[in-house]
């Protein structure tokens, strides 16, 4: 029985480890801060893997070796413990765990302790049940005032843009987040109704959109392409179908798009989105590099 259990534990451990090498992995990232996250993940998963395997192998070995067998006269070793061993393994574990914890803060600090660099491309993301509204400031660089009492679905004013505010004249709203490659992007995350969460796997970050708050995040895309945006906080019945689009365009294409008059904007945007295959990575000039997953 002990032998069987030992073998099963080892086999399950082996299967678990093999699964991690079976080809399923993160989609390729397209942002500047991704290498830091991916590296930290690898380091952590290696530590985790070693600890997992060591513990399971140890457990499997113990049950293999230390069965009572048929001879019930033989006794176990009478010991209540070993204080030195306790100290040793406590200290080693603490050093490794706290070391990992401290290391893991670096990327977080990079993303969250600094403001978006000057010259970032700003977009206001206003989530709702069950769609994404992207609000662009237009050539004047100022976001027009919004007010929930001005929301009019029938006029396609989903974010309640105040037409009387001069700054709103050149504002654009659409469901696609379209940003330039190789330039910092600042998102101002808001919600119309309940808490949502902004998430594009290739961007390697997630952020909740909390009603009543305007949360700022920034990132710099390093590749172009058409990527899917998912909601990552349960927001109601159609949480699962709240799909959006992130379109990262070469600088020139993006500049030209954002300079278009309002009437032509959506048409051109659709055209550009169709040009880039979903999930495929392109370089800064628009040359296809390969699939991200």
């Amino acid at each position, binding site marked *: *029985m*002990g032998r069987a*259990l030992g073998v099963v*534990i080892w086999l*399950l451990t082996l299967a678990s480890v093999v699964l*991690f090498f079976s080809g*399923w*992995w*993160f989609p390729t990232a397209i942002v500047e801060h991704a290498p*830091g*996250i991916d590296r*930290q993940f690898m380091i*952590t998963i290696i*530590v985790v893997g070693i*600890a*997992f395997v060591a*513990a399971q192998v140890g*457990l499997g070995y*113990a049950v293999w070796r230390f*069965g*009572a067998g048929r001879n019930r006269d033989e*006794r176990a070793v*009478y010991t*209540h413990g070993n204080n030195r061993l*306790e100290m040793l393994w406590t200290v080693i*574990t603490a050093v490794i*765990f706290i070391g*990992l*914890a401290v*290391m*893991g*803060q*670096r990327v*977080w600090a990079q993303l969250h*302790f600094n403001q978006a660099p000057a010259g970032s491309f700003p977009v206001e993301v206003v989530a709702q*049940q069950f769609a994404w509204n992207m609000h662009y400031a237009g050539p004047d660089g100022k976001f027009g005032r919004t007010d*929930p009492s001005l929301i009019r679905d029938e006029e396609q004013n989903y974010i309640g843009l105040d037409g009387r505010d001069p700054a709103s004249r050149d504002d654009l709203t659409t469901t696609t987040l379209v940003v330039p490659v190789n330039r910092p992007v600042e998102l101002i995350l808001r919600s*119309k*109704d309940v*808490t949502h*969460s902004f998430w594009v*796997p290739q961007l*390697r970050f*997630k*952020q*909740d959109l909390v*009603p*009543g*708050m305007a949360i700022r995040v920034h990132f710099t895309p390093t590749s172009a392409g058409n990527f*899917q945006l*998912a*909601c*990552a*906080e*349960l927001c109601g*019945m159609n*949480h*699962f*179908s709240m799909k959006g689009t992130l379109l990262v365009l070469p600088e020139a294409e993006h500049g030209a798009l954002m300079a278009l008059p309002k009437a032509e904007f959506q048409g051109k945007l659709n055209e550009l989105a169709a040009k880039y295959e979903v999930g495929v990575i392109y370089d800064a000039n628009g040359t296809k590099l390969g699939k991200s*997953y």
Partner: protein
Amino acid sequence: MADEMTVHEAHGAEAVHRHEPPKSFIRKYIFSLDHKVIGVQYLTLALVAVFVGMVLSILMRMSLTWPDMDWPIIGTIKPDQYLSFLTIHGTMMVFFVLTTAPQGGFGNYFLPIQIGAEDMAFPVLNMLSFWVTLVGFVFLVASFFVYEGAPIGGWTAYPPLSAIPSAGPGQGAGMNLWIISIAIFCVGSLLGALNFITTLINMRARGMSLMRMPLTCWAWFTTAVLALLAFPVLLAAGVLLYLDRNAGTSFFVPAGLFIKDIVQPHSGGSPILWQHLFWFFGHPEVYIAILPGMGATSHILSTFARKPVFGYRAMVFAIFAIGLLGFFVWGHHMFISGMSPYSAMAFSILTLSIGVPSAVKTFNWLGTLWGAKIRFTTPMLFALGFVSLFVAGGITGLVLGQTGLDLPMHDTYFVLGHFHLVMGVAAIFGMFAGIYFWFPKMFGRMMSERLGRIHFWITFIGVYSIFIPMHIMGIVGMPRRYSRFAENGQQIYGFLESLHPLVLFVTVAAVITFFIQFLFLFNLLWSLFKGKKAGNNPWEATTLEWDTTSPPPHDNFAGVHPVVYRGAYEFAVPGAPNDYIMQTEPDPAGGSSSSEVTSGNGHDGHKH
């Protein structure tokens, strides 16, 4: 020796309300004051709840794997139904299984006996705590049967989704019932916690010093302290949420919400406040769920390894450390909630620190097995399974606890894999170990070892098969709480398409694992009537419950006040006639210092 009647004993005798054994069926089995009956009542409630929870999870898996399938009787599972199954599954399992069976079930039954008491300190309160909990259960199930059905916000019920009745189906009457159910549960838990703490501190038998207590008692005690401090916060949060929904307050709701075409008439509240309150409770709650299982595992491992617990003192300190640190880490559920990123960092470092006492416990379990003479009974198999699963699940906490790594992993299936393994499945294995171990004592009959083994093997392999792949799904990017991943035969998110084989594999594993639980149920029920009769101590264990009949008499010890002479894990003592010495076994006349009988409440002169 009349002068040995210490203050403690006189106090102990008065503390238990002397009552004659009840005669009527209702007083014996329904409104019973006997902690043993109440324990069985809790276990029965948990058994019903776990089957409801499992059925819901199977429905969820079926819906995810074959989204448009028209099932017999239930038809197609629609997105809002899926979410309501998810919500009740989580609520049912966390509260009515993981917080009832280990503590209210086994703790109630065995804490008094293991410390040598006749009953809990407050038997009426004990009875109330069960019945209150049962009422909570009824309210929860009722939410399925009201207009629009059960709520859809998950067991975490984040506002504003949970605060605005029109924000989704089931968020009206169903959500009200959910809050009431949980509030009632909080009360039941608090009543129970008071009882456990008082009983353990005041009612230990002569010689049962704190450091001679079985680790199960330390676990039940710490769990009760956690419950006492954490549940009031949930209760308060629930009251505030109820007021926001029904009395026009705005604790959790800011101004300007546009839901169902109107600007909602609230202002000034913070959705994040709910998260803080909920998780301040919620994190200790997961330790409430697992600590009794850890105690049972330590106890059962030692018993069937025929070897003392390795590092008993360290184990006690680890239980305290886990309990204490458990109150400082709630923010790791909220790294990306909009909370201050500086707080997030602090929570992250504290979170990884809590891995240290958990690792210490694991090392000590391995140390207990090293050099042992293991008897592979069914309870032992499940206890060993607990260790394996706790490690598998706990270790990924190192990933999730780091702020930078939580950025991609939050709200994905990686989190699901983590908490199901470390909290759900490990705790369930602890409960299985407990039931197979203590069934003979509770019911006077043995369960079938053969059926128990089959149950173990399939469940052990099954749960690994269900939950390890979820880590991969999370890495690829599968979000939590999605009712479906395809609409009209089309995958919604391209990056998830490659996961279909894993999704199918997990569902098949889940269905098999679910059905094997009926074998366990059969074993349980059949053995109640047809199991081989059990003696007082079929396992050759050392603690006080094995020194009385199976089942114990009404006052546990047939009028005898047990006296304790040694610690709980005296196995393989060199020179002893058997490979175990019971706690109540005095040394022969003129024996070693271990025969010092200390006062039950006094200081422990017993060095280990």
